[in-house]
């Protein structure tokens, strides 16, 4: 580790808000548009990069993530332009992780090689299901054949790659999922994101669900699916390091770890969020959500920040606890104190915590990181699937 300790790490998220079609389960900030003028978008995105450079000061860029929307619809040229601008503005860590989210249609897969040449070193594929019928039901544009090819290509062109699956889908049985996951593990190399299907407001699935046309597995079955997922992935050497993310040791998404560790990150592009510490305060940022509004503001005033708030100590603490407990390792207490400025106990309802210790849902302890022992607070394997309830208790005043 030859990092300049006076210069903090920074993660950068870049949002590309366009999709070929809108998936019925997705509530992300994504939009279907005809022709996109990449030059104007490049201008807007680079202006925001410059703007945030002024706010952050010199930093080490530890990771970059192109998310969306569908960032694989961007040209490799645009990606390269943005990476160049980042490299001009900040210092790139030698081992910087640069991820791009991609859809496995053949057109997009055809661009993998160029993305790799542009500097992308990690690809995250939205596979979602391993049979054509379910892919169709999920509103995906690709089929299984394309999915397989895209996975092969991603492993060929990128040093690291991952793909996503959605489970606890309508009509899915425990046996179906076991088969599908086992098959997925024969295809995965170092990383898998396995999300339980959740119904979000403002999606087509939400409407169907509220009208009773979409029936999902109940709590017990989805809990069984979650447990099975843990068991199978453990057995295949891809244990979960976060609620929905599994990786071989060292293959974790460093960029996403920055969120869960509550480190500094900036968000560029429509609807992107950021958390940035300057002068001892942590600020939250949120950019304009509408692509058109964002673009107009970014071009005209150099940024499209719709909201910037200085977070209170209480808010910071709650956010760090909320994010940190998603990790299998939990929260490193020393990092917490360093980031928040106070001990974690001050923010946690001790009566509830004690009770959760007794129930075996939470634990506090010492762990070994290299030669250094650290102290952590974490949700146990049994507690993690209940995290929302645990949080509501320990953060109750």
């Amino acid at each position, binding site marked *: 580790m030859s990092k300049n300790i006076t210069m903090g790490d920074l993660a950068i*998220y870049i949002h590309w808000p366009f999709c070929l079609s809108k998936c019925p389960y997705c509530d992300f900030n994504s939009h279907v548009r005809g022709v996109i003028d990449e030059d104007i978008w490049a201008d807007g995105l680079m202006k925001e990069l410059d703007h945030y450079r002024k706010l952050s000061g010199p930093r080490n860029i530890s990771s970059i993530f192109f998310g969306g929307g569908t960032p694989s619809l961007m040209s490799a040229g645009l990606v390269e332009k943005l990476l160049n601008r980042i490299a001009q503005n900040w210092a790139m860590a030698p081992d910087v992780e640069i991820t791009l989210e991609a859809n496995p249609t053949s057109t997009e897969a055809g661009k993998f090689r160029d993305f790799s040449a542009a500097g992308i070193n990690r690809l995250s594929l939205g596979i979602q299901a391993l049979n054509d019928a379910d892919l169709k039901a999920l509103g995906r544009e690709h089929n299984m054949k394309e999915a397989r090819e895209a996975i092969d290509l991603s492993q060929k062109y990128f040093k690291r790659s991952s793909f996503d699956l959605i489970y606890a889908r309508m009509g899915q049985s425990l046996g179906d999922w076991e088969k599908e996951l086992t098959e997925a593990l024969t295809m995965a190399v170092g990383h898998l994101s396995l999300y339980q299907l959740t119904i979000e407001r403002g999606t087509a699935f939400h409407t169907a669900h509220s009208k009773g046309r979409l029936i999902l597995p109940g709590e017990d079955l989805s809990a069984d699916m979650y447990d099975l997922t843990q068991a199978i992935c453990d057995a295949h050497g891809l244990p979960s390091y976060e609620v929905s993310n599994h990786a071989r040791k060292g293959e974790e998404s460093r960029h996403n770890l920055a969120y869960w560790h509550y480190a500094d990150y900036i968000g560029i592009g429509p609807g992107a969020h950021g958390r940035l510490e300057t002068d001892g305060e942590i600020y939250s940022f949120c950019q304009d959500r509408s692509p058109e509004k964002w673009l107009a503001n970014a071009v005209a005033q150099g940024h499209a920040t719709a909201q910037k708030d200085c977070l209170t100590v209480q808010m910071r603490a709650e956010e760090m606890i909320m*994010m940190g407990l998603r990790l299998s390792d939990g929260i490193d207490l020393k990092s917490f104190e360093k980031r928040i400025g106070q001990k974690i106990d001050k923010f946690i309802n001790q009566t509830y915590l004690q009770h959760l210790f007794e*129930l075996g849902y939470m634990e506090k302890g010492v762990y070994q990181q290299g030669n250094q022992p650290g102290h952590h607070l974490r949700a146990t394997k049994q507690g993690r699937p*209940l*995290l*929302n309830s645990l949080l509501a208790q320990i953060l109750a005043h």
Partner: protein
Amino acid sequence: MTELSKIRNFSIIAHIDHGKSTLADRMIQHCEGLTDREMKNQVLDSMDIERERGITIKAQTVRLKYTAKDGETYILNLMDTPGHVDFAYEVSRCLYACEGSLLVVDSSQGVEAQTLANVYLAIENNHEIVPVLNKIDLPAAEPEQIRAQIEDVIGIDASGAIKVSAKTGEGIDELLNSLVEILPPPKGDPDAPLKALLVDSWYDTYLGVMVLIRVLDGTVKKGMKIKMMAAGTTHLLDRVGVFTPKEILVDELGPGEIGFFTASIKEVSQTNVGDTITEFKNETARPLPGFKPVQSVVFCGLFPADAADFENLRDSMHKLKLNDASFTFETETSTALGYGFRCGFLGMLHLEIIQERLTREFDLDIISTSPSVIYKLHLNKGEVKKLHNPADMPDPTLISHIEEPWILATILVPDEHLGSVLKLCEEKRGEQVELTYAGTRAMLIYKLPLNEVVYDFYDKLKSISRGYASFDYQMDGYREGDLVKLSIMVNSEPVDALAMMVHRAQAEFRGRALCDRLKDLIPRQLFKIPIQAAIGGKIIARETISAMRKDVTAKCYGGDISRKRKLLDKQKKGKKKMRLYGNVEIPHSAFIAALKMGDD
């Protein structure tokens, strides 16, 4: 002052929906008590709730001027009385103030249980009864059959029954004329010291407490200093008047007359229905037989759904009490429901009305616990303790035996539903006294424990008879019963608001039903929760809520933090609406739903 021979005082006895209020409207219209423009339906029922539910809660009077066939003008005082068993005492006071009653029967429906009870009360008060067959305009009307039924069931001569339609006005003049001819004029001595009956009283926002009286002897005048003999208080009258039904001030009221006075009285509780009113320092030698203070028969806890509404609820109850001295309340604390009130009522209808008024007129969200009657606990030491809150139940080993109130119920039910009504009465520990027939309807007299009746008897009776059964009761003393306190425990902690007194034979069934219901009402928690029903230390029913298994957001990245934090804040606020039971959070809604349950 009106000459005694020109006065007729009467009340109207009728079952709900048999058209009493409409008939009163027609009579008022016929005598031009109100212009057509002032007339609205059921003018006498002044509270919304009275008009909507078709019941009269407070006594009302109207003084009508009627010119009879003999060419003379008479003063007719109509008294509209509460028709429900809960207000039986008020009914009897009204009857005492009149010399006769109209017995109004729907000629398409026939005699109902409630009518029966009130007619007997009227007969006991030496009333002349004028049978009236109403609703003769209906195609289903069978006036001749109903006339025979009145003779059969009630046992009075109905040959002179008058056929009317309160709706169309047919027969109204004949009815008014018959009143003059048949009813006796009141008696009284205008020169004797004042003697008047306090019939009812209510609170008027502008005038304060208004006292409705019937003068027996002497005269009551504005400016007079009166004494309420039982209360021992004196008041200076500042207004004397009558209702036409509008309030009209008069100088005085003489014997036989019915009217009101005001005397700067602040609370209804200072006036006792049935009290004798006389002139201060010129007292009547013989006060009326006296009054009995009204006693609560049914009790329950009323709690604000939102603890912050406690003071609001207290104020609202005080306001209701201004006008309803029979409603009682005192502060109660429940571990389940927080601060609230233990309230006493005249009966189930009274309870429902109070609840409804609190909700409707005062916009309060309230939770009520299971209604309870008054039990007499005979302790080993010989002491007798009254109990109406299961929470106050002492250690059973200290009790030698428990007595519970019984009632004598009269139920009229169409033949085809008789079987199921008999079954219901047996289930409710009833003892049959009599079973007779009146046409196609059976008249059942049963002795029943009141605690079974307040639990769900009304609702069940209504549903099994499809609304055709009518029911009335009177108290029938106390009897020993094998009663136990059924406690409900959630995670081994007793939930006081759900405790109830039940007969031992019913305990297991009720306990099971409650546990089963609660199992579905209490959301899963982080651990297994036993729900138990127990008598003393003995568990008689048990259910288990399995532990929650999954509650986690699948995706939570950098863009989700703000949203999730807000969600968490909401969740934390939601916790305030929960009550903690040995670490189990029970949402308020679970209690409300559990308390609403019958054993359906």
